[in-house]
């Protein structure tokens, strides 16, 4: 279960503090559920996702993760000067997998299909190669809840097919909180939905209701 209690968030801009992106969001997200975040561009979907993942911190309020939550899948930090392998080692160690490091590395190397590039510095990678590595990294660990920000769009056609299968498998096994703009993707993976509108979040048990609410709010 992830408890989100009355969080507010605004960013620092060059002209002082910005507007409130999230204003009093409270949610209880069960562990075994796949949830889609829906909302217009700039509504705060990615912000909420980053807050849940613990990458960023709310300006007010608190979040409690009572299970193992992944980092936002598309945003796994990669250090440009290190090679893909070194980055993977770093992530394994941070997550306490020093003992079975070799297994995890083998998985990442195999799944990302980077071949020789796996030992090249990440700064030389193309966008597609980066997201391959990031995707492989987040699949290498067993989390209770995965959070994902538009990650399904990564890589070329062949890799996309592979990720879709792996993604589906993962969504069946663990909980998932995802941002996607494509209605089909949301319906395919998610049972429930959270609609973010004007700084507030609304919970819907069924994703279809969330999509309906979202569409009704769009001015004709």
């Amino acid at each position, binding site marked *: 279960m992830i408890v989100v209690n009355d969080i507010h968030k605004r*960013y*620092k801009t060059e002209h002082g503090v910005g507007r409130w992106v999230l204003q009093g969001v409270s949610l209880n997200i069960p562990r075994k559920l796949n949830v889609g975040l829906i909302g217009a561009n700039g509504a705060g979907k990615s912000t909420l996702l980053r807050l849940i*993942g*613990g*990458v*960023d*911190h709310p300006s007010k309020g608190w979040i409690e993760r009572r*299970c*193992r939550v992944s*980092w*936002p899948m598309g*945003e*796994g*930090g*990669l*250090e*440009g*000067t*290190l090679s893909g392998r*070194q980055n993977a*080692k*770093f*992530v394994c*160690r*941070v*997550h*306490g997998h*020093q003992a079975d490091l070799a297994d995890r590395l083998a998985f990442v190397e195999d799944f990302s299909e980077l071949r020789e590039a796996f030992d090249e510095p990440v700064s030389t990678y193309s966008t597609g190669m980066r997201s391959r590595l990031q995707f492989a990294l987040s699949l290498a660990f*067993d989390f*209770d809840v995965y959070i994902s920000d538009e990650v399904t769009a990564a890589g070329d056609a062949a890799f996309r097919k592979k990720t879709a299968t792996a993604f589906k498998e993962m969504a069946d096994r663990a909980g998932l909180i995802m941002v996607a703009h494509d209605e089909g993707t949301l319906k395919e993976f998610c049972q429930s939905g959270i609609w973010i509108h004007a700084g507030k979040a609304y919970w819907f048990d069924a994703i279809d209701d969330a999509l309906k609410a979202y569409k009704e709010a769009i001015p004709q």
Partner: protein
Amino acid sequence: MREPRNPLAISFAVWQAIFLREAIDRLFDMRAAWFWLLIEPALHIAFITVVYSAVRMYTVGGIDVALWIIVGMLGFFLFRRTAIQVMYAVDCNRPLFAYRQVKPFDPAIVRAVLEAFLMAIIASAILAAAALLGHDSLPRDPLLVALAVGGLWLFGLGYGLVASVLMELVPETEHILKLLMMPLYLISGVIMPMASVRQPYREFLLMNPIVHGVELVRQGFVPYYHVVPGVDMAYLYAWVIVSLLLGLLLYRRFALQLVMK
């Protein structure tokens, strides 16, 4: 569900990971980076020693001028390199904060430890080279050396912690801190003997805790070295404690601002 890890276990895992990541960056960043890491201070020290020998200065404070310079510079470099490494620790590891296990304090402490490691190796190499060239470079009072060196190192860590938070909160401080670092080399008694400064100016220069550390390291190497009057280990450690506490306090208070967008 797997048992959650103990917070201390997480910290150690993170420190280990950052240590290895930083070590790789420092040692293999460019072609033969590890070579330049060693050779840069060695050349610097060799150059100053040659200049001093050329102007016919054989002893300072009653000890061999080469040893006086080597030991003083190593102590000063330990402070300066630790301070600068810690100052930029958060900046250089920004992508890694995507993993919430990594806290802003982690790279700072790890960088200080790594710098101590590197300086220990560099110092041993340089002192061994000096011994081979016929200078008596074994510390006569290793405990005093350890205490003074530890003080310089911890002060570097404390200074770096405070500076990195200040730089993040008020970016303009970076210029001021850089300006401060420049003359520090000259006024810390590293290449200019403190004893040659006349009163009351020496009193002012002695307010700088690094002078105390550097002088005490020299005394640890050669017990009959004429330490400048007024040098005090307690004064150095007072600065260490104040800067460390202030630095940790600032990290505790502003840790979120350091990584928040």
